[in-house]
């Protein structure tokens, strides 16, 4: 059970009508994303004999029940299936599988913005993530 996790928008001030136009008003039909920082670790290269695994660590831009977007110093290939862990607060991290849906250069500086869709699989915390997101959305 997967859902697409699309690109959410650009800079905060550079828009046609500065006072009333925001990135979100340009993106009214997408799934709701909770803007906020959670820890993200992605295994971008699996270990092989003689070669260790390479992990990319960072913070999210926003999260949802079906995906996450983050800023990263390097690009990731679209379509890649990669192990991802998401860490909320001081809780145990959630181990998940993510598919890279989009990757584009950051408009406001160096690096990339990446969107991942979380995929259902055994041996992952997919259900637990959904439940955690439901709890988060009920907060604030």
């Amino acid at each position, binding site marked *: *059970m997967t859902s697409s996790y699309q690109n959410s928008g650009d800079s*905060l*001030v550079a828009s046609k009508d*500065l*006072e*009333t136009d*925001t990135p*979100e*008003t340009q993106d*009214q039909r997408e*799934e*709701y*994303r*909770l*803007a*906020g*920082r959670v820890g993200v*670790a992605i*295994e*971008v*290269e*699996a270990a*092989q004999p003689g070669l260790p695994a390479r*992990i990319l*660590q960072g*913070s999210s831009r*926003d999260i949802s*029940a079906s995906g996450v*977007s983050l800023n990263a110093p390097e690009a990731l*290939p679209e*379509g*890649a*299936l*990669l*192990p991802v*862990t998401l860490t*909320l*607060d*001081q809780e145990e*991290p*959630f181990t998940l*599988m993510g598919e*890279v849906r989009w990757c584009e250069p950051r408009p406001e500086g160096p690096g990339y913005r990446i969107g991942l869709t979380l*995929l259902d*699989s*055994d*041996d*992952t*915390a*997919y*259900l*637990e993530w*959904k*439940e955690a*997101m*439901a*709890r*988060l*959305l009920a*907060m604030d």
Partner: protein
Amino acid sequence: MAGPGPWSQGLVYCDKCVIDAILGARCCGPCFSLSSYCFIARESVVHVNAVETIIRQLRIPGLPYPVGRQAQADESDWTGFLASAWEQQTDATVIALLKEQESVTWSMTQVNAGYLADRIMDIFLQKSGLHPTLVSRVARLRFWLAWDLHRRHSEAVSESAPLREWLDSLDWLKGWSETGGRSDRQMFTQLDNLRQSVTEAFSGHSDTPVNAFFSQWLELIDSQHRRAITLQQRLLLTEQGAAGQRAAEYAAQAALGRSLQGRHLPPAITRFLLDDWQPVLRQAVRSFGVGSQQWRHAHRLLEWLVWVADPSLSGLAGEERDKLYQVGEQLIEKMHAVVETLWTKPGERPSLDYPAVESLLVQRLRGEAPELEPAPELSYDDSWLSSPEEPADVSQWEGRWYLFLDGERELRQYLFCYLPQTGEVLWTNGFGVKLGTQSFLDARAELASGYLRCLPPLQSFGQVLNRTLGGLEQLLAVQQQKRQKALLRAREEAETLRRARQREEAAQAQRLEDERQLAEAAARRSADDAREQERIARLKEEQDRQDALLALVDAVHLGGWVELDPDTDKARRLKLALRIKASGKLVFVDRLGMNRETLHRFDLAALLLEERARILDQGAEFEDTLSRVVGRIRVGR
């Protein structure tokens, strides 16, 4: 002056309305305000109250909000952080600085206060038309504004907030440019005072020093404004008079220049025209304007006198002679009449050399040839012989600031008013000091060519604030709706998944039980049949082999490696990325997560049997690798 005077009710008009008031025109209704400065019609205050809700609940993508329990935790004091940014006079935004502090967890209200301060200040200043140096200095108040918004929410930007009034007063500085002169020093001194005041406010956790600065500043501006009004009033009267003089001078010069061109006249008549009649022409323009009857008469008499004085124009034969008689009879009388009209008080009338004209007339009527000499060639512009046509759009120009480039310097000047007598515009420094005059048509051409640029009209801080907050309020409403939907959907999806897993587990248990029962039944049926027993044994052996292979397949965890087509040149090593137990689907990818291969568990078992696949490892490292990085991890139950 129409309407109440500016000072009697504590009101100050905007520049446009000052001019209207001085000229005796009606002040525009929307110009009146309740505060001490006059701005365009006040906006509704409804949105200011939305500040609190926005600060507490809005989430903008990309901002460093806390999530979950962190969002509920006590926030850290950010006063020192903002004070430091202010002290360094950095041009970075509040949000940029917050984002840089990756190890610090900012609260929702801190992040949103920073965002709001950045947004409001940037929009206000971008549309202000102020000089870039001033914009960048004032923009740094964003740190103070963020702190105050976080502390007092809507009170920080309410109508009575001193900051708001101060920001609106900056419109008075639209004419300021960094020229290196005395006004620069005054301005930078004030900005240094502001810097000091805000620093003290941060360190004392109080807005008293800042408010004191704003108050002193507003008093200064008020005093300058009053002085400027007085200067402007005087300047207008002076320049209108001067324009009238110029128009009269040029019109008289043009009339004489055209009439005398190529003529030969008695010297006495030339003197009369230049010394005596030219002032009459000027007076006609000054008092009644070009195009008036008085001017037409004076001009006509000039032409008649030249006609009479120059024999090449007025011959003595036939009709010409009769005409000379008629003109000669009336000429001096009509001259008297014009003079009497222009100077109603006899004591003020100039003394004209009429005898010179009379003597000329006698000479011409007697047929005598007066001594002639060439009339002086005067330089003139005959466009002054008619009134300049007032352009229909001139009122849109008055009372506004304009920008032009002088080499690399950016200069600002204020179009104070249009002078209808000369068709010119009067440029000032905005404080009643004349910079010069220019033909309106020339100015309009410069605007069209881009050499001159009109600065944007005033937009008050309140207007910007309300429009910004209005937009964010709408956004928040949409976010809240979408969030609620997302919450319901997440709960529903989790419930669906849970039930599916429960069903799968139940089905798996049932399958195992069914297999066990079938096996028992088969064993019982075949107990007495040796051949059947052999067949069943064979089947069981095959089944056991397949079960063993499937068990091997099922023992491969996420991250486990297999090799397809081993020992061939097409050999590929792939790791398990997804396993869907319900469907038996397995998805493999390469080391970089690409080049996926989807197999069913049965397919992989068959490949293992045919030795077209090999299991390299079962993926124990999958959890180990990540757990080393992120600590003890949670996987599916």
